[in-house]
């Protein structure tokens, strides 16, 4: 490690040059370039790798099936680290160096909000799974280039409220992880619940990464709620549920399904989990699209696709995008492709559930409605999905869907 300054400078110069060299990635006409920008590390890491691999594998299948409108898809993967700044740099790299025409898979609202000005500016499509309401409307989505495959936090909140009413709860309280999504869920719930004429006993927002949430929990339990609605993640949920059990209280919980994972389910056990209802936007589980996604996900990740609904969304992003490319025809520009996305997602037209099926129908000149693995999609004018939600209860081994609510 001993080198003098002159050598150092020479090394630096060489490094700078190497970084500036073109990557031999000149755009080919028959290629459609896609960025898979997912939260591989950071808070979204639980889902990010699965999403990214799903996008890559789905694109490979579409290519193997002959591509769309004479084009094949080339995927460039990057990690947004679940951080806006890293997301900005990654998006710049994807857009400018790899010249991608669409970015798929941003997960955190923070990253999507930071990336969307860049995709708008570049005229590229953005497909995300973020919950923040701001993403639907101008200025963020002024150019209608952004699509959301996840229900907004507001819609989640509405589903929570319906489920709480259906279960007969009268005195709900909320606890939220202090970030946009956690608060979005519980505030969405509060809004919907109050619209139904109800009231909350307490609404607590807590800071992450604490060894204990006893005082937060205690302040909620002191108001004697019959159910606690959570906007939470895996680590904090496990601690809160454990501490709740240890207080001896008999409250019930309604949680988003991403707040538990296999390891915490195994460790918390039936005594705790039998008091919980988890809610998720229902993946279109009976559908052929879901079966196809599930098989693909098991192959890539060695786990059932049900465990990662975001990967199902990523699957749908890739398929819907490819169908739009096909529908727009050979040589179409991004704007023409973009115009096809909402109509292809339904609800009107012949239902198709795979790329090959949809492409053949399009070739035959029919109008199609792609029903995906994550939901039937049916994107609205803002590019948002309105999926159905499932209420799940613990059966001693895993959470099992009991019923579906529509909002």
């Amino acid at each position, binding site marked *: *490690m*001993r080198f003098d*300054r002159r050598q*150092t400078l020479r090394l*630096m110069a060489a*490094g*700078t040059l190497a*970084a*500036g060299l*073109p*990557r031999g*990635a000149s755009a080919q006409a028959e290629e459609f370039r896609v960025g898979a920008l*997912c939260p*591989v*590390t950071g808070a979204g*890491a639980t889902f*990010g*790798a699965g999403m*990214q691999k799903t996008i890559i594998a789905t694109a490979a299948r579409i290519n193997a099936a002959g591509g769309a409108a004479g084009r094949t898809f080339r995927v*460039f*993967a*990057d*990690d947004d*680290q679940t*951080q*806006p*700044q890293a997301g*900005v*740099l*990654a998006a*710049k*790299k994807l*857009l*400018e*160096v*790899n010249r991608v025409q669409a970015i798929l898979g941003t997960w955190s609202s*923070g990253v999507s*909000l*930071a990336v969307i*000005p860049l995709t708008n*500016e*570049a005229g590229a499509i953005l497909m995300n799974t973020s919950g*923040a309401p*701001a993403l639907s409307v101008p*200025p*963020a989505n002024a150019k209608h280039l952004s699509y959301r495959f996840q229900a907004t936090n507001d819609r989640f909140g509405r589903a929570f409220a319906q489920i709480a009413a259906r279960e007969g709860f009268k005195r709900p309280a909320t606890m939220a992880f*202090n*970030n*946009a999504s956690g*608060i979005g869920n519980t505030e969405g719930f509060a809004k919907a619940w109050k619209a139904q004429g109800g009231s909350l006993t307490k609404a607590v927002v807590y*800071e992450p990464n604490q060894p204990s949430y006893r005082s937060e929990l205690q302040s909620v339990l002191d108001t004697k709620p019959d159910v606690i609605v959570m906007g939470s993640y895996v680590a904090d949920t496990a601690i809160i549920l454990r501490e709740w059990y240890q207080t001896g209280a008999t409250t019930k919980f309604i949680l988003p399904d991403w707040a538990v994972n296999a390891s915490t389910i195994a460790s918390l056990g039936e005594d705790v989990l039998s008091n919980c209802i988890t809610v998720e936007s229902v993946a279109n589980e009976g559908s052929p699209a879901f079966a196809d996604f599930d098989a693909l996900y098991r192959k890539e990740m060695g786990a059932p696709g049900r465990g990662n609904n975001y990967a199902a969304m990523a699957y749908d992003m890739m398929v819907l995008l490819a169908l739009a490319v096909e529908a727009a025809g050979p040589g179409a520009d991004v704007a023409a492709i973009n115009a096809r996305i909402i109509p292809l997602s339904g609800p009107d037209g012949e239902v198709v559930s795979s790329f090959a099926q949809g492409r053949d129908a399009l070739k035959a000149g029919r109008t199609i409605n792609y029903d995906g693995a994550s939901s039937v999609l049916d994107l609205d004018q803002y590019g948002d999905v309105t999926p159905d939600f499932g209420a799940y209860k613990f059966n001693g081994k895993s959470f099992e869907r009991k019923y579906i609510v529509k909002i």
Partner: protein
Amino acid sequence: MEAYLLAIAIFVAIFTLLTLGLNLQYGLTGLTNFGLVGFFGIGAYASAILTTHGYPVVAGFAAGAALAVIAAWPIGLVALRLRDDYFAIATLGLSEVVRVAIISEKELTAGVQGIPGIPRLFAVLESRTWQPLLLLAVLVAANLGVVLVMRRIARSPFGRVIGAIRDNEEAVRALGKDPARFKTQVLMVGAGLSAVAGSFYAHYVGYVTPDQITPLVTFQIWMAMILGGTGRISGAVLGTLLLMLLIEGARFLPDLLPFVSSTAMAELRVFVVGLALVLFTVYRPQGLMGEVARR
């Protein structure tokens, strides 16, 4: 490619402002400020809040710098009393307090939702090439200005005294000079500079959240300074560039090494940054540009 390189260059230029500020504080004065990101956050949020409420960009820059300078004054009073390792821990804690305050004061800061839609600088230039180029030019000019000011300070009677404080504070006191006054002024200058960097950052990224105000930023600036060479003004620029290349360069590896999964790549990137920090502190504490080993 050009726009991506421009983006990197802009980030390098923004963070170089921070590294130059740290170099003044630690490199020249020996102040172990581990709370840089707190002042950076004050600048970023001042700009974000004021400009999204319709105030001019200049107001955001000025308010951010003024607030940071005012906040640094009481910290200077504390600095006077603490040993350097304790001061490091105390300032680290203070920057966390800034972050928590940003999270909590929702009416002002929108809490964890963050503030989107911060106007970009020179947005009148519609061009995707000229706008960032002009911004980069302004940033480079700002950096040059700061470098000149730092040189002037380093080679002045003031610079002599802060160098003396770095070497032996007691002896400075024994000669009839009050180290607290000098340290406080240095902290205030460094804080103002960090805030200006924060304002540039907010305008460039266009979106600020408390997640961007974590101690990780502080650590990265320390790394940049160590890489470049403590106490050397040219080292601050070089170190920031090198750190950015180290972090950003890893982005290209998946294109070249498709067999390494992106999960592994992300972890490897952190690993490499950690390894570089260890190797430099152990084998080359004077950094790339340093001539004299600092102990």
